């Protein structure tokens, strides 16, 4: 960039940090270590703002569910009984475990010392994410066989049960899209981390990916009682 | 002149609403005059280089000003809220002696039914000085029942009931308008409210037939025998809407056209696979043996009563706009036709829904 030429001023610093500094943080009037710390904080802050936005996104979906459920309690209980609680619970466990591995990967990368641990945990996270999608695929197949897709051949008699399943399909697909994006981001980190030994070390991208991953997990934590637990006792 | 700036006021609510309006208009005009006056005065008096006296600016005056006008606006706004809200709370409770009128809205007409079953289309006869309660629902999309002279508006929702009430204070004929956008002919979904002296209203009511004619039998059959399950708007099954098709050309599979007359409707009920409407799957079962001739006649009468105006158009193509002015067609209110006489007397025509 032309600015770097014009602004070439002597600054103490480590070449490896300098390589990871990006615009506009590289132009800050501080030494590289401070600039890099601010770039890191900037990344964390930015992703948190985005996560706040995502909270409103899923909040609006959950509100739709809540309003429909309040108006149609029995139908929602009857519909909730039809989802497969085994798959649902298994998938919740898988995602919570993936959050554990993701958290360890992120904290290890932050320390910058445990490259193999970071890579291993990232790989485990991506694998667990894929496992979730596979289980979800089996569940979808069963749902379709049980005629739980809203429409002419819907299995349940109560009309509002279709609203439950409309929500079920919509929100699980939206969640799966989010999760797939997460798997893509984690895979990207693994690929770059394998090529460049220093890539993962203290890289804010790991933390950003991790925070996004946890949010996707949190959404599922709430979807679990919404989709799988209603009407079990009836 | 003032009369031209205010709509006619013909209900109890209109008086309350106008009073708040006038109060708010005066307050707003004063505030606007103050702001614009100060803007002009300051910018001219303190124009660049003018000799106006620019005394030093005291340090803390801005803080006191801020607190002052914040408090003043809060006080003013809370007062207006209290005033408007108290008028509104009164408007929510329906007097117990109100007469009940059922209103059904559909694309693009108003159907009303008095308590004795007398039905009207795009018209509503009510007595003066009696509270009238409207119980409203829609057959398709959201509409809104708006009578400007009564300062009355309430959305009409499909598959839900909304209520509103008014008490007319003047006899006369008033606009009834749809104010929630509802599709192609939203601007032509017009009617009129005719407010009559109590005796005239009683006379009018006594000459109306009391409901349940052939078309209404058909309407009942239409839902009882399951026709509505597929042909009603919003049904999960992809079936053509029957509203507004009477004696109009219907596109068939293969580019042919049929006219939706009694014979075609009878054929479609008994041999549904023969002339399938273009764009639809031949999924309708035959009703041969399930409906007798009288019942088919009733259903035909019902479809006829739905009119030949374009109805719920989902796949039948874009309806033609055949008239440049609102009104003119049988169901349209003549009150909306430019130059048409305004009738104070009961309309000679009976209910429009008649086989």
């Amino acid at each position, binding site marked *: 960039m032309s600015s770097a030429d014009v602004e070439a001023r002597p600054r103490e610093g480590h070449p490896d940090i300098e390589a990871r500094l990006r615009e506009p943080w590289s132009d800050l009037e501080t030494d590289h270590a401070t600039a890099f710390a601010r770039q890191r904080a900037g990344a964390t802050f930015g992703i948190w703002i985005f996560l706040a936005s995502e909270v409103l996104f899923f909040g609006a979906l959950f509100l739709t569910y809540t309003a429909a459920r309040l108006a149609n309690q029995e139908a929602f209980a009857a519909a909730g009984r039809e989802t497969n609680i085994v798959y649902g619970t298994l998938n919740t466990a898988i995602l919570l475990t993936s959050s554990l591995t993701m958290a360890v990967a992120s904290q290890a990368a932050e320390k910058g010392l445990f490259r193999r641990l970071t890579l291993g945990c990232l790989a485990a996270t991506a694998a667990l994410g894929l496992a979730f999608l596979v289980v979800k695929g089996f569940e979808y197949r069963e749902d379709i066989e049980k005629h739980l897709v809203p429409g002419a051949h819907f299995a349940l008699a109560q009309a509002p049960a279709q609203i439950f399943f409309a929500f079920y399909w*919509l929100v699980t697909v939206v969640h799966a899209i989010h999760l797939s994006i997460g798997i893509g981001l984690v895979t990207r980190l693994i690929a770059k981390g394998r090529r460049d030994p220093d890539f993962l070390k203290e890289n804010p991208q790991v933390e950003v990916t991790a925070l996004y991953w946890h949010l996707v997990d949190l959404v599922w934590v709430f979807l679990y009682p919404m989709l799988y637990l209603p009407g079990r006792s009836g | 002149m003032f009369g031209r700036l205010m709509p006619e006021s013909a209900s109890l609510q209109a008086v309350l609403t106008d009073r708040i309006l006038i109060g708010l208009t005066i307050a707003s005009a004063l505030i606007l005059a103050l702001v614009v006056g100060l803007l002009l005065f300051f910018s001219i008096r303190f124009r660049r280089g003018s000799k106006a006296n620019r005394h030093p600016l005291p340090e803390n005056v801005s803080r006191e000003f801020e607190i002052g006008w914040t408090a003043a606006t809060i006080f003013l706004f809370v007062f207006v809220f209290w005033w408007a809200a108290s008028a509104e709370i009164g*408007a929510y409770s329906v007097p117990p002696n109100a007469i009940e009128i059922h209103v059904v809205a559909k694309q693009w007409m108003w159907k009303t039914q008095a308590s004795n079953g007398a039905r009207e289309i795009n018209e509503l006869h009510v007595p003066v000085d009696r509270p009238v309660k409207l119980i409203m629902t829609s057959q398709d999309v959201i509409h809104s029942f708006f009578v400007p002279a009564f300062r009355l508006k309430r959305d009409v929702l499909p598959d839900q009931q909304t209520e509103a009430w008014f008490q007319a204070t003047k006899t006369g004929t008033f606009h009834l308008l749809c104010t929630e956008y509802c599709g*192609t002919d939203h601007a032509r979904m017009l009617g009129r409210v005719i407010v009559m002296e109590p005796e005239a209203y009683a006379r009018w009511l006594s000459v109306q037939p009391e409901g349940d004619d052939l078309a209404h039998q058909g309407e009942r059959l239409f839902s009882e025998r399951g026709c509505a399950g597929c042909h009603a*708007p919003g049904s999960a099954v992809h079936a053509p809407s029957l509203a507004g098709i009477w004696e109009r050309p219907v596109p068939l599979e293969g580019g042919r056209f049929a006219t939706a007359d009694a014979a075609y409707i009878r054929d479609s009920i008994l041999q549904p696979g023969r002339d399938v409407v273009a764009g639809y799957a031949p999924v309708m079962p035959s009703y041969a043996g399930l409906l007798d001739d009288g019942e088919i006649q009733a259903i035909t009468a019902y479809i006829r009563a739905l009119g030949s105006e374009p109805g719920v158009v989902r796949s039948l193509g874009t309806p033609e706009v055949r008239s*440049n002015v609102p009104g003119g067609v049988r169901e349209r209110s003549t009150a909306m036709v430019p130059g048409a006489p305004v009738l104070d007397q009961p309309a000679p025509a009976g209910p429009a829904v008649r086989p």
Partner: protein
Amino acid sequence: MSTTASPTGLADPDELDLRLPVSYLADGHSVRSWLLTTDHKRIAILYAVTITLFFFIGGAAATLVRLELATPEADVLRADTYNKLFTLHGVVMVWFFLIPSIPNTLGNFLVPLMIGARDVAYPKLNLISWYLNVGGGSLAVAALLLGGVDTGWTFYVPYSTVFSNTWVSLTVLGVFTTGFSSIATGVNFIATIHLLRAPGMTWFRLPLFVWAMYTTSLMFVLATPVLAVTLLLVVAERTFGLPIFDPARGGDPVLFQHLFWFYSHPAVYIMVLPAMGVVSELITCFSRRKVFGYTFMVYALVAIAVIGFFTWGHHMFTSGMSPYAALVFSFLSFVVAVPSAIKVFNWTGTLYRGQVGFESPILYALGFVGLFTLGGLTGLFLASIPIDVHVQDTYFVVAHFHYIMVGASVSAYFGGLHFWWPKITGRTYPETWARFAAILMFFGFNLTFFPQFIAGYLGMPRRYHVYPPEFQIWNVLSSAGAAVLAVAYLMPLGYLTWSLLFGERATNNPWDATGLEWRTSSPPPRQNFFGSPRVQGGPYNYHPEGVAPIHDQPRLPSQGSLT
């Protein structure tokens, strides 16, 4: 405008920078250098080009609508065509012109300059945001070319999901996409303002425009996702037949309205808060006076941004909403008017004992204050339930929101465009033409929209292409005003384009303003500043504390300096 001998136009020799400015405009001339730029200033230009295009698409639709309404009969357009045109007008103007107008052009250009930063916090995200906006806009225009949409910009269910036979899903996807552009911009601005302020630029030294962008970004981030979900639900119901809002299958169409207005009411503030920021800059600069009550102006911006989220229900008083909820929303709607009133009084107070000039930017700004006041006061009518019940969905509402969104916001956009035009392009525009356009715009606007208040109270519903003849007089006035307004909007297109080619070279600080953006060359270099900005004081240092400005006030040290 004063021209001095120095090439940078700075009076203070300390601030002279004799290196030749390498303008951001000269930093690469290929198409690629524009389309793949991460320079916030170039992205601002990209946005300016696209929103101008959308402004004239939306304006063309409005012209046809007003033409049709000149007579009570349908003599120009068929009903369906009319319905598609007002929908197009609304969708394009709201999401592809007004929402991105000030934030993404002036905001993108100025926020880093005003806080003394080199760029926004995430330059690539900034570029992505433009592509999302263009992508969404393309989908919406594609829907128009394929046959249009007839739902109105509000997409009310069940009309949009079950009944409309037009290109609803495509349009909705376009709006959905551009929503993410808004979120990206919001994230970017919030992070930039938090993290990249120059040394010494404390929160209460920020120019009010930056505060306005900050609060706007807050609304971008927190309101837009709800719109995204709402539109997603519409597409799901329409395309996949999933029952969500369809009342025939147990859904609640009023719930759609709640979700829609949770976004779309704050969206009004997304349009007007940036305008308030612009106007604060203009009024203080052209009255050579510190802004009156700076801290109250800041609190008012924040208060509007927060309380603005509590008031959406006043769009739904006639919808069948519960009367209790209606009262709560009515009260909150009155509350949000208080900070807006404070701002109006403060702008007026700023003129007091100033040295007021009448260059074109302040003409736009004074027009803004007048139109915003009238728009805001009629908002009180709409917050009063009995009046709202009568005028809801009539031309009264149409007039009210055009006063806020067009009268106020578009005036401020034009004012800001003129004010910063020398900085952005390095050229000066013909001042006489600009003043004439500003005055014409003000009168054209009032002629167009004031009669609509009366027509609305008389009972003329909106979205009618034929109407009872007694409303004709008001519609004729309004259509005549629209013709004037169209001319007034086309004039800047002409003379500003002219100035790009033939305008005089602008000095660095033609208005003698104090902000950091005037501490650099016109147009600024790629890296914004030669040297590093240091901020020593608050904004608007036009005159010594406690003393009114005198004629030919000597320049005080501006807000910051470069080291």
